[in-house]
């Protein structure tokens, strides 16, 4: 579209600036961490002053929060939700369980490392992360968006075979639609 390198830079700057100030989070809690979202959103911590607010459907949302442990059964739904989301889209891994399994590291039905199945832009550690930590995670995501480094969705498209192979390795009965993008 814009062949001029400097004009492209300005357009990117404006695009990223506007994206970072309207982070809409999908109202979808997968584990116990979802209980930290209401205090983050309501009056005491008021995440909406950073432009963070809830979105009703995957197609309206920008951020998918994986709040806490993720069972294999839920992972199926999460993959479908993530693939329905439209660009720009980001994933925040929330809590220890998404990083290395946390206290469910030896559970028979929860995954250990989230970024083998979905591209994670920002991890928030803690069990549970308090609302301050959640806001700090959102601030980190805003920083990465502004710098143009929150490119998880592009990585997912590039390495789709690798992600698919990992997903199919733990989901034996694969009944998901195949996308051609």
């Amino acid at each position, binding site marked *: 579209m814009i062949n001029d390198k400097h004009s492209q830079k300005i357009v990117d700057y404006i695009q990223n600036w506007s994206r970072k100030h309207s982070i809409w989070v999908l109202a979808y809690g997968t584990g116990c961490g979802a209980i930290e979202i209401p205090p983050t959103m309501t009056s005491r911590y008021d995440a909406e002053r950073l432009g963070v607010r809830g979105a009703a459907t995957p197609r309206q949302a920008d951020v998918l929060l994986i709040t806490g442990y993720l069972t*294999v*059964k839920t992972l*199926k739904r999460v993959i479908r939700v993530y693939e329905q989301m439209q660009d720009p889209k980001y994933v925040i891994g929330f809590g220890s369980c998404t990083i*290395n*399994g946390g206290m469910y*590291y*030896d*559970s*028979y*039905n*929860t*995954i*250990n*490392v989230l970024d083998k199945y979905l591209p994670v832009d920002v991890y928030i550690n803690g069990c549970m992360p308090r609302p301050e930590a959640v806001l700090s995670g959102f601030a980190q995501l805003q920083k990465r968006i502004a710098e143009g480094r929150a490119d998880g969705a592009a990585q997912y498209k590039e390495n789709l075979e690798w992600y698919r192979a990992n997903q199919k390795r*733990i*989901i*034996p*009965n694969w009944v998901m639609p195949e996308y051609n993008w």
Partner: protein
Amino acid sequence: MKELKENIIQRIKASFADAKERNDFSDNRVDFHVKKETIPSILFYLKEEMGFIHLSHISCVDWLEEGEFELVFIVWSPVDKVKVFVRTRVDRENPVMDNIDMIWRQANTYEREFREMFGIQFTGLVAPDEFILEDWQGPPPFRRDFDTAEYAEKTFWNRPGREDAQDVRETISGRDGEEIPDFAKKYSR
């Protein structure tokens, strides 16, 4: 309460010869151990004749060393305010149990869970398909000889070289320009 409990024990023992009772609980609890063939009839008798109309819980205990599963049926009488535990043992190698969902329909939920988590087969179970575990291919996970840690390691594998996650720490610090604090540096390889 004491007379009430004695009365219940006498009535049960008069009708069911194989019932062995325990009555040393200080609260309103009576405990029977019966053979597994007696379970439907004793539960039906408790519900229809003695007013124990509420099925509180069905629980399963894995006695691995004795090679048996113990099923505990807990029923409650809202009139007498007494709860009765009915215990039975099922063979662990061939766990087959009588279905009691014609007495309490809600027993079906417990039975489906035991079928999935312990591998106990209930005769004539309604909807004997997958219940909570989706696409489960391993052994029943609540059995004590199922090693969850080993299974998790095999299924949700670790990347090679990720044992101490030091490479992750260095990558993240290099990417975001953070300094690794001194206390964390000593774990570096």
